């Protein structure tokens, strides 16, 4: 399964991904960006590269054709000798709170959903909450309230609170998806959420 196949399957299950296109060369990248609309992000797609950012394989906030050409060249350089599937052209995500929505199949309890705030909150503070599938909306409310960092979701420092309804629908959809496709592990990471809606920036899963 390639990244594009994965994305397609998620879309089939009703996940709204950020508009994207896989470009094989600079010309295709330019055309895709034009169609998607600037600003865009470029991301290296290679089976051998898991941590795209670490190798310099991600370029964000590309606002015009000229910057895109430069960014494309840099990404190709960064790949070195690694085998490339192409470069993903993706619409820039909204500004908002970075979330991780994970899922796994526990050998004892079956499918479960894990919610956490992205970045250092998950990695350093291990600030996550979990519930078994299937979820009801009350479960999602509790998962949010349980996070130590939940004030960030409730609108700390003058920001508007996130759209909980959207998060709830996404979590419920993730449960259904895991059950129907018998997923062993999934990661929607990051999901950027604000008061209006959310953008699924990257997604991975395995069966």
């Amino acid at each position: 399964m390639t990244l594009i196949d994965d994305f397609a399957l998620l879309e089939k299950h009703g996940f709204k991904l950020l508009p994207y296109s896989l470009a094989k060369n600079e010309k295709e990248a330019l055309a895709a960006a034009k169609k998607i609309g600037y600003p865009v992000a470029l991301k290296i797609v290679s089976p051998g590269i898991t941590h795209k950012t670490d190798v310099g394989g991600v370029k964000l906030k590309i606002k015009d054709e000229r910057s895109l050409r430069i960014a494309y060249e840099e990404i190709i350089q960064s790949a070195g000798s690694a085998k490339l599937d192409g470069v993903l052209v993706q619409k820039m995500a909204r500004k908002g709170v970075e979330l991780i929505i994970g899922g796994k199949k526990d050998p004892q309890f079956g499918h479960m959903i894990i919610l956490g705030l992205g970045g250092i909150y998950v990695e350093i503070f291990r600030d996550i909450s979990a519930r078994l599938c299937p979820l009801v909306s009350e479960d999602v409310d509790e998962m949010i309230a349980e996070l130590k960092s939940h004030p960030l979701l409730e609108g700390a420092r003058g920001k508007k609170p996130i759209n909980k309804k959207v998060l709830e629908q996404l979590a419920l959809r993730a449960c259904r998806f895991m059950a129907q496709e018998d997923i062993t592990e999934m990661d929607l990471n990051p999901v950027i959420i604000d008061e209006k809606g959310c953008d699924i920036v990257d997604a991975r899963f395995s069966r």
Partner: protein
Amino acid sequence: MDRRIRSLDHIFNPKVVAIVGASATPNKIGNVLIKNFYDARFQGRVCPVNPKYADIMGFRCYPTVESIPGKVDCVIIATPAETVPEIMEECARKEVGGVIILSGGFEEVKRDDLALKIREVADKSGIPVIGPNCLGVYNPYTKVDSIFLPTYKLERPKAGGIAFITQSGAVGSTVMDLAAYNGLGISKFISYGNSTVLDESDYLEYLMQDEETEIIILYIEGAKDGRRLYETMKKVNKVKPIIALKAGRGRGAAAAARSHTGNIAGSYLAYQAAFKQAKVTEANTLGEVFDIVKIFNQPKPKGKRVGVITNGGGIGVLTADAIESEGLEIAQFSDETRAGLAKILPSYGNVANPLDLVADAGVEAYGKAIDLMMADKNIDALLIIILTQTPPIDERIIHVLSRVVDEKQKAIATISIGGAYTETYRKILEGKGVPSYDSPNSAARAMERLMTYAKYRELLGKK
């Protein structure tokens, strides 16, 4: 409910108990078992089984289970693992009521073949089987006792409403000892070991309909079927509160638990989620299990507003801190309560919550202050600090508090901090059913758990 689960009645309320592997040698497990039945004045018939003896301690001894005349309700097996499958066959032919296998040497040492034979016989015959690799059961109501530890070393608790399900025998036996020491009453004790035939979910189902059981403690290392446990907990916890303690949370501990019980410990995150979604009260330590369970005999609070009474200012402040850190509220007294309290305080006293009766406060002042707060609609529960070191406090405080608990108006918990003298008071209070704590934090935490469960039950009632 499964017929086999209902058949556990044969094990808990037997008329005839057979002990296979009975021994005349003191301190052998097969001897301690008989002695325990004898010492507890078990009202039914005890039948030792061992072809080597004609009688043991005055009980007639039988060569086999099948040679016992009449119906046998409960068979306790304490012979080496290799002999157990054959004894199980015999039990099936005899159509016994139920079997407890104390012997180890099955899944936990990779003898799944022996375990499989037991399961086959049990499934074919429908006989309920507890164990193997366990301590079995204790029922203080009928004196059935397969705990092979001498009673002079491990005291048995009195009869009461707390059921205890434990995978580990060691944890089970220490909890029993502590329960007895602290005066807590037990309804049923089940140490189930490898759960080869019946598992934790079956025992929860059984206890849900057990008349003597009011609250269930569940100690678990690894569930046999996590999903079923989740569904069962959801169902049972609606009727009777479950207090759960999960061991084997870290990776190292999980590995130890696996070799220990033969079950694979699932990830703790999933257990935590299951407890939360089933609204089961989770304890983090054995100490917390006791803290929580002893407050669950109290009336269910309607809210989270706490009234505090103390005879020492500082402990009152610490208690207010603990109340806040648990997310509970310090109650605002009604005008009536304020007026009433002003009358019982000395001239230099101050009507406030926490209410400081000051160190001169006698037992009467406690009684009056408690009654006023019980009548106040702005208060949902009381934390009562009694510093027994002050001169006017004497044993009459015990009568006041046990009266308050018997009246069952609102939930109370008492806090007394001190040395041997104070601990004596606490023990007496606990024996009278008055929840007593040695720190404001443990009292406030237990109260919070009770309030959270009470709220869950209230919401259920509205649905």
